[in-house]
């Protein structure tokens, strides 16, 4: 294991996830990976690439298309001394196996009064933007974050992805690791350049439950996660040209949710826009806004959200792109906010 940090070596999120996993597997024989096509193929989204070659079929297991069984099995293995990393290929597939996730993985620790640990990572891809339509493009962040007993992380860049992955593997609690396809750095899914950043070679943790201020600013707080962070950064740049200074908060983790960082930012700027690619209603955007105003509602303007409308995700790129959050929509929401007040 190399422990020299170069500070300049850039990785994609896919490679950062694989590296974190490989380092953990080298250190700890109880760590193993299972899921569909995680073996020789290296994961449809590249995040297990190289693992099967290095660790073999025992520790990197292709499974049948039986999510209920293999996620349930991960729970059983995790309670028996292993540290499984299990993949749900698309988060959209949660419907066939949510019971194993939210009723077993997330609750067994509570049901045992804390005596049974479930140290596992459920990694799953999120997001659209490449016309994969309504069963392969969802984010479903709130669907997971709403239900108690599992931590939920959503990295926006490779540095955080590696650190959060390492933290998730080391955590004695179940962690849902939601990676956005557009950030994976797989060319075929498009590539958000900002997600591919310098990543230290040695293993390190990024604390689960701490948001990051991705950009400091005085006039407006933009709160987002995953791919949305990059839209916010672009919007902040555009607003800068107009003379406004936006702060961008990257939540990184939904459970635990770092309300303090968000509140501190809004206390400073007085304005809040939440950007979320998950569905608009009963989701992340509502929670963030409520978390701010229940604490202090005296903002300079009514808070706003730029979220995915409450519609299934359409296939046609014209419709899909129109519905997706982007920098223009954020800028427009800010302009609207100024007009209203």
């Amino acid at each position, binding site marked *: 294991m190399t422990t020299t940090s170069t500070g300049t070596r850039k990785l994609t999120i896919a490679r950062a996830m694989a590296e974190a996993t490989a380092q953990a597997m080298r250190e700890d024989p*109880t760590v*193993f990976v299972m899921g569909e096509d995680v073996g020789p193929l290296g994961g449809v989204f590249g995040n297990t690439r190289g693992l099967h070659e290095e660790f073999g079929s*025992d*520790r990197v297991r292709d*499974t*049948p298309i*039986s*999510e*209920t*069984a*293999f*996620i*349930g*099995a*991960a*729970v*059983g*293995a*995790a*309670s*028996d*001394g*292993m540290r*499984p990393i299990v993949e749900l290929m698309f988060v959209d597939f949660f419907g*066939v196996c949510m*019971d*194993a996730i939210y*009723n*077993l993985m997330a609750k*067994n*620790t*509570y*049901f*045992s*009064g*804390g*005596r*049974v*640990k479930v140290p596992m990572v459920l990694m799953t891809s999120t997001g659209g933007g490449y016309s994969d339509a309504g069963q392969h493009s969802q984010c479903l962040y709130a669907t997971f974050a709403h239900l*108690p*007993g599992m*931590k939920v992380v959503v990295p926006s860049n490779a540095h955080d992805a590696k650190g959060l992955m390492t933290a998730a593997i080391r955590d*004695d*609690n179940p962690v849902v690791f939601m990676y956005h396809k557009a950030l994976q750095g797989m060319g075929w899914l498009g590539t958000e350049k900002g997600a591919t950043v310098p990543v230290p070679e040695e293993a390190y943790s990024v604390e689960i439950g701490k948001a990051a201020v991705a950009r400091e600013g005085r006039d407006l707080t933009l709160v987002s996660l995953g791919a949305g962070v990059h839209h916010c950064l672009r919007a902040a740049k555009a607003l800068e040209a107009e003379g406004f200074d936006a702060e961008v908060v990257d939540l990184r983790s939904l459970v635990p949710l770092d309300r303090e960082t968000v509140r501190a930012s809004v206390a400073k700027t007085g304005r809040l826009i939440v950007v979320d690619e998950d569905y608009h209603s009963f989701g992340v955007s509502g929670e963030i806004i409520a978390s701010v105003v229940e604490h202090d509602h005296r903002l300079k303007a009514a808070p706003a959200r730029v979220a995915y409308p409450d519609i299934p995700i359409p296939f046609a790129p014209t419709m899909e792109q129109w519905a997706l959050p982007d920098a223009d929509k954020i800028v427009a929401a800010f302009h609207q906010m100024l007009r209203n007040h």
Partner: protein
Amino acid sequence: MHPTRDQRLWMYRQMVTSRYLEERIETLYMEGKTPVFNMAKGPIPGEMHLSNGQEPCAAGVCAHLGPEDIVTATHRPHHIAVAKGVDLDAMVAEIFGKATGLAGGRGGHMHLFDERVNFSCSGIIGEGLGPAVGAALSRKMQGKSGVAVAFMGEGAANQGAFHEALNLAAVWQLPVVFVIEDNAWGISVAKQASTAVPRNDSRAAAYGMPGMHVADNDVDGVFAAAGEAIARARDGQGPSLIEIETARLAGHFMGDGEDYRPEGEKAGLEARDPIPRYRRALLEAGLLDAAADAGLVDEAHERVEAAIRFAQDSDFLPAEAALDAVFV
């Protein structure tokens, strides 16, 4: 595979203990629930699923298991928990919701976890199967001994989890045994109204694993079948499926009017109650005499009474403890 004298007595003791435990629970459960039956009332609130009549399934299987072996059970878990050696005091205290319970009262009777003997259960049909497969995988990967046994009702054999778990266990040739307690009912729905085949052991063929059937709620028959299946698992020969014809002597849960039962069914089942039958068999085989039986029964009762006293004497956790133990 025939049980030894000690094994037969051990099984008998488990059955007697579980039965008495549930008789006592039945009484205690009803406290505060008359004249108006309200689940929220009394010292044991919530749903209560008794396993009266199904004790042979638990005793016959667990006779082959040690503390290191893994068992996942269902919403109807008491007989299995008893036979698996779950700490009786902590278990009863959990059923009462007390601080000294297995989970400090957070779980209740459908969520009994005793990691010391690798026992757990859950309230969703078919939910224990995946975890059993995973625990078996864990043992195989770690090169540790131990088999996993997943118990379920015959109704669970129609749930998707059944299919996925059996297939996965078979593909990976894991040391796991699937045990179906066929009590002929899933709540009010009869097996033949919900299951396309008369016997679920025939479904084993769909996974290339041995399927075994035990007729007539016969504990020695369970012992024999489970012995074979567990030996195969320990020997690295992969999973098996067993279906046991058993009987639910009580309602689905307490409060169930059982109007859906055909006339006479209940009386017939009671006449075939497996515990008196086994007692007679042991007496006839000379493995037990009346005095030894009385001693064994008394001892079992005293263990249960002690556990109940322990539970009753225990305090509740402070209410705010509800917030603890979500994460470790």
